[in-house]
């Protein structure tokens, strides 16, 4: 049963921050509530005050700029990102990821910021945003702070957000030339969460086609979204071959620390990672090679 709580629905960011500052650890933020209400129903979260930020329109936007890249307000719904022509054009991998996130119903109401703040390591957006080298802005009553999406997560369902703070914006830099980015997840039911997910970004040198830069980020493979840095090191600076990608998959699978749960065992997830890192790496590489 959901506990009783007092409810506020601020209409501006400033109002929300004032309320958050006032109620601090006694309150919880609800955006779409697609994850939060499940946890409240299970009695895992019992706030005395609920601050509903869903109606704050100033945090709901998609802005693209050829030079600066993409800026997405934290309250933008998954469905809006999935359907945005600007995102489909310049960040199609992001739209494709959103298209496979949960069901249409959940995407219609749930927001990208809510997904990140929930801190579920099985979430789809985080690994892809990490591969895209995305940053985010956290707002508090006394000002803002910015950080890499990669540094936002601390542990299972835990982020760096302090009491009184909320996530306000996500920024994705323009994808550099000769770069391929791909994401996929393994799941049994299409609208389900990732058993594991893998995002890879590869940038090739303009001459020679060596791997100049890359990121490999994994979903549901550790207590938080993680980068497979040893696997990255194996590929960095090299001419990427199928054999190297296979090896990278094996390395990533040993770096990861996935749990066993009702969906899959640790061993099964590790096997999946071997295959998916190789497969997604290959896809990113082929996109990077396209003229």
């Amino acid at each position, binding site marked *: 049963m959901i506990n009783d709580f007092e409810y506020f629905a601020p209409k501006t960011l400033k109002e929300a921050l004032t309320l958050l500052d006032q109620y601090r650890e006694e309150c919880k933020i609800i955006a779409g509530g697609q994850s939060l*209400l499940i946890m409240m129903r299970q009695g895992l979260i019992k706030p005395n005050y609920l601050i509903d930020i869903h109606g704050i329109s100033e945090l709901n936007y998609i802005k693209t700029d050829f030079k600066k890249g993409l800026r997405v307000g934290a309250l933008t719904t998954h469905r809006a990102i999935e359907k945005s022509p600007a995102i489909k054009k310049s960040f199609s991998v992001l739209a494709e990821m959103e298209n496979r996130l949960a069901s249409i119903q959940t995407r219609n109401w749930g927001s990208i910021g809510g997904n990140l703040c929930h801190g579920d390591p099985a979430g789809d957006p985080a690994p892809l945003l990490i591969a895209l080298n995305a940053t985010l802005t956290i707002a508090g009553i006394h000002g803002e702070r910015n950080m890499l999406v990669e540094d936002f997560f601390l542990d299972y369902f835990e982020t760096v957000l302090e009491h009184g703070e909320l996530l306000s914006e996500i920024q994705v830099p323009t994808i550099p030339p000769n770069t391929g980015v791909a994401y996929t997840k393994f799941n049994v039911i299409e609208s389900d969460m990732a058993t594991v997910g893998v995002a890879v970004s590869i940038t090739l040198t303009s001459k020679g086609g060596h791997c100049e830069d890359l990121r490999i980020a994994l979903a549901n493979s550790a207590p938080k979204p993680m980068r497979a840095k040893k696997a990255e090191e194996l590929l960095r600076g090299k001419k990427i071959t199928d054999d190297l990608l296979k090896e990278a998959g094996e390395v990533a699978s040993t770096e990861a620390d996935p749990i066993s749960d009702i969906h899959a065992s640790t061993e099964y997830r590790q096997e999946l990672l071997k295959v998916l890192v190789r497969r997604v790496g290959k896809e990113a590489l082929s996109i990077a090679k396209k003229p």
Partner: protein
Amino acid sequence: MVKKELRLTVNGQPYELYVKPKTLLVEVLRNDLGLTGTKRSCESSSCGVCTVILNGMAVKSCSILALQVDGGEVVTVEGLAHGDALHPLQRAFLDYGAYQCGFCTAGMLTSAKAFLDENPNPTEGDMREAIDGNICRCTGYNSILRAMTAVVNGEYREEK
């Protein structure tokens, strides 16, 4: 806990009521408004039987607080028909036997309606995706897709 005012329009009818903040949209629809066509089942956003159309979008009414919908427009399965004239999707569901036990049907219909309103000329893949948030444990998906296809192909017109 102090009740709060909630105004919403359901199936074209405006309502003004007072609800506890923890009340879910599905609870308002079923308990306060008596619209029991919308079902409750998994309560964890997984099964889709509670799907309703909110401001033109399919959403799961078990996973939204009623107060979050303040000022919104909701269409439930009861709102699909015009009086005795069933919605084309409803007639197609009947003709194609697109239900067995019927428990998922309200959610299937509302998901299908929201989807076809947005995309009247979908591919079969699009239609499969449109109902992938709705689980039918009788596994009658093929007949549901056949019914949707018949509507898309214009075999059923709106009766006014």
